[in-house]
């Protein structure tokens, strides 16, 4: 059941990425190209998503617990450590190089493009390396 719900929600998310243009690296790179062929569309993607999520989260979080779990799993960390600066800095460089972030890259997985075929395995290797490193090394902050 949870598989099917997640499948439907992943599909909704993915259709949103495709319809919004976020799944097109050319559009993402133009959004990031402030001093060139700037395409501000993706600000509307962010705005639309935040508008719905800002209101929706407030409604949902008035509940005692979610429908299919015992409790809400919300990130508890609030400190600004090296991870929250270095990780996004590295992420942004990759985002600016390829125009893909993880969601759009996954929606592109089934479409024929050599660049996607190079990006996705490398992305999973990067994710795996970061997970193993952050789970094995002592964190810079006390958590």
């Amino acid at each position, binding site marked *: 059941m949870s598989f099917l719900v997640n499948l439907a929600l992943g599909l909704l998310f993915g259709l949103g990425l495709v319809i919004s243009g976020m799944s097109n690296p050319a559009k993402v790179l133009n959004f990031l190209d402030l001093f060139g062929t700037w395409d501000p569309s993706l600000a509307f993607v962010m705005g*639309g998503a935040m508008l719905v999520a800002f209101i*929706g989260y407030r409604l949902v979080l008035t509940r005692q617990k979610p429908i299919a779990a015992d409790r809400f799993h919300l990130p508890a960390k609030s400190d600004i450590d090296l991870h929250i600066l270095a990780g996004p800095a590295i992420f942004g460089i990759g985002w600016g190089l390829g125009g893909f972030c993880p969601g759009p890259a996954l929606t592109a997985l089934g479409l024929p493009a050599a660049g996607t075929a190079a*990006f996705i395995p490398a992305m999973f290797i990067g994710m795996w390396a970061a997970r193993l490193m952050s789970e094995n090394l002592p964190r810079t902050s006390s958590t």
Partner: protein
Amino acid sequence: MTDFTPLASLIGGMMIGLSAVLLMLWEGRIAGISGIAGRLLPPYRDRAFLSRFGFVIGLVVAPFVMMALTGHAAEQTVSSNLPLMAAAGLFVGFGAIWGNGCTSGHGVCGLSRLSARSFVATGVFMATGFITVFLVRHVIGD
């Protein structure tokens, strides 16, 4: 050049937001794609593998469902510079997990929760994204 598409982008964005809200309602989790995708690989700390797998399959089939429903193929232009794309993938994957989130987890879910960490993360990856494209297109490029 790509066309400015405020309406389609707003509607698509609202669908992304709705998916995030419904995931929170269903099982109380943040719709962070890097967290969902990154935990498809071992080691497994919980029993949510099948759920995460379902979400990722939904993302993968989305362009095909779009094609079936509307007859329009998803518009996509990907660089064919393979070493560049592989490097981009490594940076995106590593950075997203190292920073506990990506465009969805920090940019959409985190900002909507008014998380200070997500405001910092989103500001930093937008800044390095802008700088990278500036360097690639306007400094190295010409």
